[in-house]
C-alpha cells in the first residue's frame, strides 16, 4: 500500500508541477511594477523619472499576455484542423492528408501559408468598412474568452470575480461580428447565413446560461478558480456528479455549446449544401483564415469551459494526486470533449431549422428551468456536500441512465426499421 502511494507521490506523477511552473499574473504585475520602480526609474534623467508612470509595468505585462495568447492560440487550430481532417477520414475509411510531412502533419501549415498569400478579395458592391472589420471582432472576442479560462492553478491571465459571467458576455458579442460579416458582404448566402446564426446563437444562449446558473448556485461564486476549487476532492466531487440536475445540465450545456459554435448537427449558418459557406462566403485569404482560427479556438474554448464547470477543471480524479490534473490533465479533458464534437459532426446529419428551434425552446429551456428548481431544492435538502449526498446523487444518475437506456431501446424497437431505398 505504501509503495503504491509512494509511486503516485513520485515526481513522475507530479509532472505538471515540474514542467509547468505557476504563472500567476498578479505576481508578475507586482514584479513588473517593482522592476520599473527599482531598476528603470533610477536610471532615467531626473526630469523624466519623477513623472514616469509605474503602471507602465502593468500595461506591458498585459500586452505580453495578449501577445502570448495571440501567438499560442492560433497553434491550436493548426492542430485541431489536422485532427478534424484525420478524424473525419478515419470515420469515412480514408487516410486524410498524407502528402505534406510525415502522415500529412504539416498540411495545415501549408494551407495556412497558402491562405496568407491568397488575394484578399473585397466585394465591390458590399460595405467595405464593415466587411474589413467583421473578422477582427469575431477573432478578438474568441480570444478574449481565453483570458478567464484557468488552465492550471497558476496558468491563467486573470481570476475575475465575475469570471464565467464575463465569458458569457464576451462570447455573446461574437454574433455581432457574424451579422456584420453577413450583411456587409451584400450576398444572399451571407445574409441568410448570418440571420440563421443570429437566431441560433441568441436562442441557445438561454439554455447555456441557465445550465451555468445551476453550477453558480452550487458553488456560490462566479469566479472560475473558485468553481475549480470547489471540485478538488476527486472525481465524485466534480460538479457533474454532485447532483442529478447538474448531470442533466452538463449535457444541455455541451449540446448548446455545439450550437453556439455552429458545428454539425447545428451548422445551419454555414450549411455547405444550402448556402455555400454562410456568413463567410465572400471572404478569402487571411480574413477567411481569421474566421477559421476563431471557429476552432471557440471549439476549444467551449470545451475548456465545460471541463472547468463540470469536469473538475485542472483538478485530478483522485484527491491529492496529480492524475488527469494540472495543465496536462486540463488539456487532455478538453481535447476529449473536442474529439466528442468531431465525432458528433461526422456521425449526425444536419437538423432542420424547425427541429433546431423546437429542440431549444420546447425541450432544453424547460428542462434547464427544471434543473434550476431541482438544484435549489437539492441545496435545501443537502446544505453541505457530504458523502451521503454524493452517493444518493450517483445512485439517481445510475438509475436514471439505466431507465433512459431501456425506454429508448423500447421506443426504438417499436419503430419500423427504415427500408433501404
Amino acid at each position: 500500500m505504501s509503495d503504491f502511494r509512494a509511486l503516485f507521490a513520485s515526481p513522475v506523477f507530479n509532472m505538471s508541477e515540474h514542467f509547468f511552473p505557476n504563472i500567476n499574473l498578479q505576481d508578475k504585475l507586482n514584479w513588473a511594477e517593482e522592476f520599473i520602480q527599482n531598476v528603470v526609474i533610477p536610471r532615467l534623467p531626473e526630469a523624466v523619472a519623477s513623472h514616469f508612470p509605474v503602471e507602465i509595468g502593468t500595461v506591458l505585462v498585459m500586452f505580453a499576455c495578449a501577445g502570448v495568447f495571440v501567438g499560442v492560440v492560433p497553434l491550436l487550430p493548426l492542430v485541431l484542423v489536422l485532427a478534424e481532417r484525420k478524424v473525419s477520414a478515419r470515420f469515412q475509411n480514408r487516410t486524410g492528408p498524407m502528402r505534406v510531412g510525415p502522415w500529412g502533419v504539416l498540411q495545415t501549415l501549408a494551407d495556412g501559408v497558402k491562405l496568407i498569400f491568397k488575394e484578399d478579395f473585397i466585394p465591390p458592391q458590399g460595405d467595405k468598412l464593415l466587411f474589413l472589420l467583421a473578422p477582427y471582432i469575431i477573432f478578438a472576442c474568441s480570444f478574449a474568452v481565453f483570458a478567464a479560462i484557468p488552465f492550471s492553478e497558476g496558468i491563467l491571465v486573470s481570476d475575475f470575480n465575475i469570471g464565467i459571467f464575463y465569458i458569457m458576455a464576451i462570447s455573446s458579442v461574437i454574433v455581432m461580428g457574424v451579422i456584420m460579416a453577413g450583411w456587409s458582404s451584400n450576398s444572399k448566402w451571407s445574409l441568410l447565413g448570418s440571420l440563421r446564426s443570429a437566431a441560433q446563437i441568441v436562442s441557445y444562449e438561454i439554455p447555456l446560461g441557465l445550465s451555468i446558473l445551476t453550477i453558480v448556485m452550487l458553488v456560490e461564486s462566479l469566479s472560475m478558480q473558485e468553481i475549480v476549487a470547489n471540485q478538488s476532492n476527486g472525481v465524485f466531487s466534480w460538479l457533474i456528479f454532485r447532483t442529478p440536475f447538474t448531470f442533466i445540465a452538463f449535457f444541455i450545456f455541451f449540446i448548446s455549446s455545439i450550437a453556439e459554435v455552429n458545428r454539425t448537427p447545428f451548422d445551419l449558418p454555414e450549411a455547405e449544401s444550402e448556402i455555400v459557406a454562410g456568413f463567410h462566403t465572400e471572404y478569402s485569404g487571411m480574413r477567411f483564415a481569421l474566421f477559421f482560427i476563431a471557429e476552432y479556438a471557440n471549439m476549444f474554448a467551449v470545451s475548456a469551459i465545460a471541463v472547468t464547470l463540470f469536469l473538475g477543471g485542472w483538478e485530478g480524479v483522485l484527491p491529492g494526486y496529480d492524475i488527469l490534473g494540472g495543465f496536462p490533465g486540463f488539456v487532455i479533458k478538453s481535447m476529449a470533449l473536442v474529439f466528442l464534437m468531431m465525432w458528433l459532426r461526422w456521425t449526425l446529419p444536419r437538423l432542420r431549422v424547425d427541429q433546431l428551434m423546437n429542440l431549444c425552446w420546447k425541450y432544453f429551456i424547460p428542462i434547464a428551468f427544471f434543473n434550476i428548481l431541482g438544484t435549489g431544492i437539492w441545496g435545501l435538502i443537502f446544505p453541505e456536500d457530504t458523502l451521503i449526498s454524493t452517493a444518493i446523487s450517483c445512485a439517481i444518475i445510475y438509475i436514471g441512465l439505466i431507465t433512459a437506456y431501456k425506454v429508448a431501446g423500447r421506443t426504438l424497437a417499436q419503430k419500423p426499421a427504415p427500408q433501404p431505398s
Partner: protein
Amino acid sequence: MEFTLKPFIFYGFALMTIASALVVVTVRNIVHAAFSLMVTLFGVAGLYVFLQADFLAATQVIVYVGGILVLILFGVMMTSGRLEMRIHIERGQLLLGGVVALALLMLLLTVIANTPAWKNLTDDGTELPPTTERIGELILNGPFLLPFEVVSVLLLVALIGAALISRKEVRD
C-alpha cells in the same frame, strides 16, 4: 503630482463613448448607426468597470450588445436586405428630437446637481469589494424582491404577447 495612467484610460473610454454616440445620431446608414451603438455600449461598460461595478459592466454587454442590438439588426435585415438603408429626417422631427434631448439633459443635470453622494467620492486607490454578492442579496433577499418579481412577470407577459402576435392563424 504623481503621474498615473488611469485618467488616460478613463478619457479614452469617455471619448470612445461620446464619439460613437455622435456617429449613431448623425450617420444616415441605419446599420452603421447600429454598429456604432455597439461601440457606445462597450464604452459605457468600460466606464462601469472604472466605477468597480464589473457585474453591471458584463450585464450591460450581455443584455444590450448580445441581446437588444442583435434584435435591432435582426429587425433591420428582416425588413430590408438591401445595403442602402437611409434614414430620412424631416425638420419637424429634428425640432421635436431637439426638445426631448434638451429636456432630458436638464433632467439629468438636475439629478446630478442634487445628488450629494458623488461629490464625496475620492479615488484613493482602494479596491471596493465585488458588487455581485450585494446585488444578489438586494434583489433576491432584500428590499427589491417585489420589484424584481413584478418585472419578471411583466417580461413573461411580453413574451406570451409576442408569441400570440407572431403565431400563424390555424383555420379549420
